[in-house]
């Protein structure tokens, strides 16, 4: 009486064997492409700001905003694991700021940026800074859809940051070596870091900066081709 059930469950014909090519990274790439198209259609330039924890990403973004806000309509997406400390700092410059808290993740991904863009007044913007979670490793693996990539490191991280994290510099357009006012005290030679960057990515423009003194901030703006037309 139980025979029919037995036949059905043991049948070879019921196993479906499928060969396919499901690219797991494609969804993020697709969303990044969507973000890129959306930004292009609105004529907005988006800049990824990536770099080590405490290298001065937020300070550099703030310093650039101070110099650029009279020429461009700027907004900022701030990525962090938690808190709104950075977005509060940026918002004090009077530009629209969205904090994206990743919770458990160490990087932003294209889907989080898609959500953030949906909440922004895109018709009233020219320029968006997307500040990633402080991390020299993971953000390199997850494109977001922005057009330019700025990587920020600082002399206080020691002389080997570039060689130790090559992936982060391969696609960078501009690299800021920040806190150069402390270079002597740290016994770190910014020129040596620049040589390392040139070895890894000869197209990247490396700039020494100090957000404390304001040195080099204008050079970063120029390297990103952000001079008002």
């Amino acid at each position: 009486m139980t025979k029919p059930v037995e036949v059905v469950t043991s049948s070879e014909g019921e196993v479906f064997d499928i060969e396919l090519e499901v690219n797991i990274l494609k969804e993020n790439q697709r969303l990044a492409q969507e973000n890129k198209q959306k930004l292009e259609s609105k004529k907005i330039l988006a800049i990824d700001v990536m770099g080590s924890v405490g290298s001065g990403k937020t300070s550099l973004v703030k310093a650039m905003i101070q110099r650029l806000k009279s020429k461009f309509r700027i907004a900022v997406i701030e990525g962090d694991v938690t808190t709104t400390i950075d977005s509060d700092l940026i918002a004090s410059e009077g530009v629209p700021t969205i904090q994206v808290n990743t919770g458990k993740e160490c990087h932003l991904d294209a889907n989080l940026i898609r959500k953030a863009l949906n909440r922004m007044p895109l018709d009233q913007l020219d320029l968006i800074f997307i500040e990633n979670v402080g991390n020299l490793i993971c953000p390199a693996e997850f494109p977001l859809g922005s057009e330019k990539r700025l990587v920020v490191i600082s002399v206080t991280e020691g002389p080997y940051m570039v060689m130790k994290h090559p992936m982060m510099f391969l696609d960078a357009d501009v690299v800021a070596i920040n806190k150069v006012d402390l270079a002597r005290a740290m016994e770190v030679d910014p020129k040596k870091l620049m040589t390392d960057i040139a070895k890894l990515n000869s197209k990247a423009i490396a700039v020494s900066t100090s957000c404390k003194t304001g040195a080099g901030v204008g050079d970063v703006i120029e390297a990103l081709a952000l001079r008002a037309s």
Partner: protein
Amino acid sequence: MHEFTMTSWIVEALFDLVRKEDAKQVLEVHLRIGKLRALSTDQVRFCYGVLSKGTVLEGSELIIEESAGKIRCGNCGYQGEFNPEGDAYHFGLPPLICPMCSSSLLIEGGDECVITRVRMQLPSTAPESTALS
């Protein structure tokens, strides 16, 4: 790195497939992971075990093929394979510098993460079709 994130994306893609085919149980999953993807296959297996628990994926066999890393020198045109073995990512990955001219290397392949084959149990077919097999 990102084994948990990547594996949860893999599991989501498998759930999509399961829904599409109306499968009752997944038996076998084949992945191709590039050696330059920076994913530890041991950790992917571990995460897969955790994420598949209590789902149609539970108990399925995960078969991982690693594909070679391909690099090219932007300066002298040197091309070759770059294959950090095993735990090299954790213990001393050589820098991405051309062995011929010391310029920076471009990654041309071996950074993928792909589901290549899935075997799954479909719902019971009609008695006459099972009789045929």
